[in-house]
């Protein structure tokens, strides 16, 4: 055996390893392919061996070959073999190979499921890590479904290394298996506050990716992210969060308002350019979302633009690029502020960097005005000449056209200039945008009537010089222009100076080499030209011209009759026959011109591109209804199920039927309409009478005749359009001069100066009158056109499936597939728990329980629903109050359970968000709530201290203060007051809500609850300690931080949140928090410190400031309440002296604080009660004078219970301790007496909880 191993390893030594392979390839530069094919043969041999090391070596080489472009999918099975090696070395090679070449259609992937699962649960973190990394590259929907639960478990792994990988891979799992999103989301959310920055960053990363695609579902996380943003120092996380906010603000403008200030602060304070840039970007997004009705943000815009200018002026090209990129976003909403930086942007157009030029081009779009359009386009035309790469040149071309045609040619004052620009653009070689130029030409010629004469002349020249455009077959893109030219010349042939010449140009044999659709236009338009010529010659006694023309057509058209293109052929033969007939008539001296031109009478109006789609469906017309009932499926199948033919026939027939009937017809109709819209030959049924062209008054200004129409396309020296720039300048100057004269202004001497300062001069936009009084015909739209533009999302977008409402409660069916005996969820309803505990026997019991319940259920359904509603309300409130202490872990631990609860708490979430957003000050609501609480508690105890007043000036304030003075400073009372105050704030918030909500019943319930004057005891126990210089608050709460893998029996932790508030005018520092550990409860101290060392509070307190710190305690037994003694030491620092102070306090851990609100379904509850494992106990409360649902609300709220069921004056409630004890209550009320029967598997705990409940109610 040993010999074999040694032999194997010796064999291996002489195998070719990766380095040898690389070296070999480098040594065979001439016959690389041959060498590699021999290597692949070797590899195949190696893969056949049993030795895993040899196999791994072979797979490693294959990975390299894959990078060189060789297909290695044939080795997929061997890769799986190597993946399943027990040695990390080989496993890693295997997973790397898999991640490089596996994909969804690799069939061996399904063999890997179990191997991956095994690796995921490996005790070695690197095995798990490698498996996660690999899986992230090749996860398939099947793998995602099968492994989702395992990965979710890993999200709570003890090692941050695994946690961060597990969190990150969840995004891939969501994409492949969208059903997993909702069950996994609560935990993902938890990870946002993971103590490890890497895990936190991963969670932020995943949520940002999710939210980017479906932002509205993540709006409710805004407060959490806001908190992270204000607290995090990790730039990566900050950037992601800020980017996320950029995606969220368009949905919620109030969020934007909240963000502006912290973002502005960041912009001022950060030194990291990347962060600064993202802040600016998000501020821009905010400003865009606020663009309406927020007048006082000009400062922010200025700040952004100013910062961006700094970026653009930076010598770092990267910053320049990004600056321009962000600038283009501002441009959309605040063009004015960008326009002032025109100089800078024009300068960037000359940058040597193409990326930067492209960005600057984008910006130009918003820079143009009537004033500077010509100048800018002239500059761009120069760039077109200089540009060497076709991509950049094409980009320039489209930009020129975009800029000129934007908002219905708003900025064009001289269309002759524009036409010449278009003609110049046709000189571009090899452009792909011929059709774009063509459509512009058509558009302008059709819609700007005054320009037609000029356009026709230009087009005639183009046609004459068509050989220049078509000479090179490579630049066939540009010959599209001829399509437009031919059509314009034909349609508006009455403007042609020399129609015969143009006709001749259109019938050149070379035309037959053009694409079919262009030929067709040529043929059709020769007919139009022919008609025009006939008409013009009619009065003429000499008929030679018309006869010659007829002959020309008869001679030349046969070429087209033979065309392979059907369209061309058909048109040519029709026209040929027509012309032949006309020739006959001409020979008989019959006047035909009238009839021929009648063929082309009427004008074509432009139709908007989407006109057809916008025709509203007439009322009563159902386009989906069958016109003829289709043969029913059941008929044919039921009657003769076995007859092959009858069975098949309808199947074939129907689809065809539908196609023809609906889709196809609609498509055809659409196509026809489109065709008609685009087709110049389409004559409308009722031709509108030819409109008389208004002779443009401005035309005199421009002596059109001066332009030599026979100018060849390539003019040496000045390009044509330049003439217009000059002419335009002259014209404007002249106009101004005239205007001046008219107005008889005295300052004539300035006029000469004006010419120079032409574009920066005081001339306003309105002053520039267009050269032509252009009548821009708007495109026709059907009457009652629907304004909506359908912007269909890509149906194949995988993110569409992730558009899932995350606030909706989790249904049972949505739970992730769990493998048996695996406790996956930390918080679960006892059903699952019980199942996990005693899998088999419980099953039957559960069933019987269910059956018994059934009848009851039916009866109670109604009341249940009602109650649910109410309960829901309570929860909503609870949410709010909890939210007030969002810093405390309970609020967080609550989230997952809440998501799992049956009654929807979406509204609570939303109202939460609303509340958060409606807070005027920027401070998060958390801070606010705590400060209020602090102030309330502070007031009575330290009358001598220079006490701060409560920060929020509320009308309730004086009242509260009064009450505080009258009441004793006993802890509990204070607590209540605090809560009261908090509640009052909530109340306001609720009222605010009522205005919006419309559910009357709900409203009253809510109102009732809230307006009830009784204080709700605190969710968190605040202990108060005071000294003359100092006040401290402490909220204590149980949080379940125990191992979520279900190890509830040990490792329970309690997190205590303490709010420190400085009440004196001195600076407090070096605070140390220490607690005397008991046997049962221990303060968790950092490793290495002794059991009596204090914990340093991680902040200092300037006067009047409060802050919160959290301390984790380990608790072994939770059945008894506990008190811990502790001290806080700190240094009070004055200007001249500093003193050491000490403060003693007691921490009170109630049993209630060990309970966690856990949802429970009634059948599970019944099962639990029947199980007989629970000990019972009961108490009676006398003199309770409050509505029953308030009572329940209180128990829910103070003692972390949830209502399972309620019937009239009887309710069952459930809660669970952090160590998994079930606590069940049956609360009954009659009159002022409330009896509570309780069951729990731990009698001591139960007793204590009941005592605490009693105490709660005795206090009210």
């Amino acid at each position: 055996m040993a010999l074999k191993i040694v032999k194997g390893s010796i064999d291996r030594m002489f195998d070719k390893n990766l380095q040898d392979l690389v070296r070999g390839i480098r040594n065979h530069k001439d016959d690389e392919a041959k060498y590699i094919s021999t290597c692949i043969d070797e590899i195949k041999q190696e893969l056949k061996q049993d030795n895993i090391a040899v196999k791994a070596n072979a797979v490693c080489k294959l990975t390299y070959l894959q990078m060189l472009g060789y297909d290695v999918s044939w080795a997929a099975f061997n890769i799986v073999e190597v993946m399943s090696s027990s040695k990390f070395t080989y496993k890693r090679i295997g997973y790397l190979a898999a991640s490089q070449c596996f994909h969804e259609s690799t069939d061996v992937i399904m063999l890997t499921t179990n191997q991956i699962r095994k690796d995921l649960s490996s005790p070695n973190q690197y095995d798990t890590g490698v498996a996660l990394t690999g899986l992230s590259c090749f996860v398939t929907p099947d793998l995602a479904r099968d492994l989702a639960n395992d990965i979710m478990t890993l999200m709570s792994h003890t090692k941050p290394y695994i946690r961060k990988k597990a969190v990150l891979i969840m995004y891939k799992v969501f994409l492949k298996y969208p059903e997993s999103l909702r069950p996994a989301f609560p935990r993902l959310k938890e990870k946002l506050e993971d103590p490890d920055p890497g895990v936190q960053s991963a969670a932020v990363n995943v949520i940002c990716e999710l939210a980017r695609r479906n932002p509205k579902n993540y709006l409710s996380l805004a407060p959490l992210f806001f908190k992270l943003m204000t607290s995090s120092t990790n730039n990566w996380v900050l950037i992601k969060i800020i980017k996320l906010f950029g995606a969220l603000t368009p949905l919620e403008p109030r969020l934007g308002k909240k963000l502006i200030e912290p973002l502005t602060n960041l912009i001022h304070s950060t030194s990291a350019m990347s962060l600064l840039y993202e802040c600016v970007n998000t501020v821009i997004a905010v400003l865009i979302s606020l663009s309406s009705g927020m007048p006082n943000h000009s400062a922010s815009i200025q700040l952004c633009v100013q910062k961006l200018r700094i970026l653009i002026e930076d010598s770092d090209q990267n910053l320049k690029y990004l600056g321009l990129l962000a600038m283009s976003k501002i441009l959309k909403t605040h063009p004015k502020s960008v326009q002032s930086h025109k100089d800078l942007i024009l300068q960037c157009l000359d940058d040597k960097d193409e990326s930067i030029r492209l960005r600057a081009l984008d910006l130009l779009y918003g820079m143009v005005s009537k004033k500077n359009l010509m100048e800018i386009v002239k500059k761009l035309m120069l760039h077109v000449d200089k540009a060497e790469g076709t991509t950049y040149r094409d980009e320039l071309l489209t930009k020129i056209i975009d800029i000129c045609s934007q908002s219905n040619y708003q900025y064009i004052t001289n269309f002759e200039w524009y036409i010449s620009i278009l003609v110049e653009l046709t000189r571009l070689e090899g452009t792909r945008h011929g059709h774009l130029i063509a459509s512009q030409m058509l558009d302008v010629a059709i819609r700007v009537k005054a320009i037609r004469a000029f356009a026709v002349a230009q087009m005639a020249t183009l046609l004459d010089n068509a050989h220049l455009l078509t000479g090179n077959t490579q630049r066939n893109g540009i010959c599209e222009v001829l399509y437009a030219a031919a059509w314009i010349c034909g349609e508006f042939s009455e403007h042609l100076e020399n129609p015969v010449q143009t006709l001749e140009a259109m019938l050149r044999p070379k035309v037959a080499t053009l694409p079919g659709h262009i030929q067709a236009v040529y043929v059709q338009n020769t007919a139009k030209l022919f008609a025009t010529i006939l008409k013009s010659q009619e009065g003429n006694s000499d008929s030679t011209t018309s006869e010659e023309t007829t002959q020309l057509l008869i001679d030349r058209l046969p070429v087209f009759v033979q065309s392979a293109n059907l369209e061309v052929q058909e048109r040519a033969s029709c026209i040929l026959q027509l012309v032949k007939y006309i020739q006959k008539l001409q020979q008989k001296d019959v006047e035909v011109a009238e009839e021929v031109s009648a063929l082309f009478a009427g004008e074509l109006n432009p139709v908007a591109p989407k006109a057809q789609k916008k025709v509203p469906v007439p009322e009563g017309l159902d386009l989906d209804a069958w016109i003829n009932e289709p043969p029913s499926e059941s008929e044919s199948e039921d009657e003769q199920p076995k007859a092959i033919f009858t069975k098949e026939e309808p199947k074939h027939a129907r689809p065809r039927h539908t196609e023809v009937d609906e889709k196809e017809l609609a498509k055809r109709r659409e196509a026809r309409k489109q065709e008609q819209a685009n087709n110049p030959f389409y004559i409308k049924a009722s031709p509108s009478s030819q409109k008389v062209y208004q002779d443009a008054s401005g035309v005199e200004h421009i002596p059109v005749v001066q332009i030599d129409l026979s100018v060849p396309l390539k003019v040496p020296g000045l390009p044509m359009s330049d003439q217009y720039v000059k002419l335009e300048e002259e014209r404007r100057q002249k106009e101004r001069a005239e205007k001046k004269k008219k107005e008889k202004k005295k300052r004539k001497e300035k006029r000469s100066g004006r010419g120079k300062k032409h574009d920066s001069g005081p001339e306003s936009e309105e002053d520039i009158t267009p050269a032509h009084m252009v009548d821009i015909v708007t495109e026709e739209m059907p009457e009652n056109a629907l304004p909506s533009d359908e912007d269909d999302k890509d149906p194949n977008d995988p993110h569409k499936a992730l558009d899932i409402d995350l606030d909706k409660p989790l249904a049972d069916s949505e739970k992730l597939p769990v493998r048996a005996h695996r406790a996956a969820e930390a918080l679960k309803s006892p059903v699952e728990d019980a199942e996990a505990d005693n899998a088999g026997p419980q099953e039957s019991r559960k069933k019987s329980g269910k059956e018994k319940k059934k009848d009851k259920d039916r009866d109670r359904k109604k009341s249940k629903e009602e109650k649910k509603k109410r309960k829901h309300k309570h929860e909503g409130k609870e949410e709010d109050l909890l939210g007030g202490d969002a810093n405390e872990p309970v609020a967080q631990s609550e989230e997952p359970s809440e998501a799992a609860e049956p009654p929807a708490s979406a509204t609570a979430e939303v109202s939460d968000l609303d509340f958060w957003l409606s807070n005027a000050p920027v401070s998060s609501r958390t801070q606010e709530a705590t400060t209020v609480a602090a102030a309330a508690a502070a007031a009575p105890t330290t009358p001598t201290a220079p006490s701060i007043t409560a920060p929020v000036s509320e009308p309730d304030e004086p009242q509260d203060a009064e009450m505080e003075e009258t009441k004793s400073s006993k802890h509990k009372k204070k607590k209540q007051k605090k809560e009261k105050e908090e509640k009052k704030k909530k109340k306001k918030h609720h009222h605010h809500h009522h205005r919006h909500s419309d559910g009357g019943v709900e409203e009253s319930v809510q109102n009732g609850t809230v307006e009830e004057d009784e204080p709700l005891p605190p969710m968190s126990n605040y202990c108060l300690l005071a000294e003359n210089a100092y006040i401290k608050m402490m909220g204590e709460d149980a949080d379940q931080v125990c191992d979520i893998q279900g190890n509830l029996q040990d490792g329970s932790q309690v997190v205590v949140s303490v709010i420190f508030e400085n009440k004196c005018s001195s600076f407090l520092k070096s605070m140390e928090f220490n607690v005397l550990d008991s046997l049962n409860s221990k303060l968790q101290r950092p490793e290495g410190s002794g059991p009596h060392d204090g914990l340093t509070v991680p902040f200092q307190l300037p006067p009047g400031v409060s802050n919160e710190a959290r301390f984790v305690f380990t608790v072994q037994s939770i059945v008894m309440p506990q008190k811990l003694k502790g001290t806080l030491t700190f240094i009070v620092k004055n200007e001249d002296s500093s003193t050491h102070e000490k403060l003693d306090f007691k921490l009170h851990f109630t049993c209630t604080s060990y309970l966690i609100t856990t949802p429970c379904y009634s059948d599970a509850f019944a099962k639990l009660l029947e199980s007989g494992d629970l000990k019972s106990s009961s108490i009676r409360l006398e003199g309770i004078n409050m509505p029953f649902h308030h009572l329940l609300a209180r128990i829910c709220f103070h003692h972390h219970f949830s209502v399972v069921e309620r019937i009239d004056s009887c309710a069952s409630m459930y809660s669970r301790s952090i160590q998994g004890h079930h606590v069940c209550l049956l609360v009954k009320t009659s009159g002022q007496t409330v009896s509570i029967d309780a069951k729990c598997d731990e009698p001591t705990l139960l007793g204590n909880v009941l005592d605490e409940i009693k105490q709660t109610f005795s206090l009210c």
Partner: protein
Amino acid sequence: MIKAILIFNNHGKPRLSKFYEHYNEDTEQQIIRETFHLVSKRDENVCNFLEGGMLIGGSDYKLIYRHYATLYFVFCVDSSESELGILDLIQVFVETLDKCFENVCELDLIFHVDKVHNILAEMVMGGMVLETNMNEIITQVDAQNKMEKAEAGIAGAPARAVSAVKNMNLPEMPRNINIGDISIKVPNLPSFK
């Protein structure tokens, strides 16, 4: 999201390719060629961003690259990534390589592409940035290498010896040295932003 990470040299020879979306081998090679073509014709002092080519990308995607001595490091990312952030990430990546290989040069990447992959896997996972802290990355990489060594144990020793001998293989030596242009060291990296 990061769509792809490519490393190639001044001649367009791929040194590492990592695609976080599936393409077949031919398309991958085409993408590498196209990207090389786009990136290589750019001057040294232009910006590091580039609107992607035809094959990879689309309007939402950008190429973000850095050029170190003989190597181009190109990341193809979508708009959810911060441009400057990715530039920093490339820097972190190269610095990490520099630490792990002790003065990294192109030859290291040529002969140890698997190691480069392993390092990259600690930084980027499935197209998402996993870790940006260099020390953390190096710690994890080192720990895994240690494990690998421990596994090889005594059995690995002869193999290592043989590979050392192979590396010293005299007849091959001159040829290795001949290919001079590749062994240029990555220069001292510009300061981290």
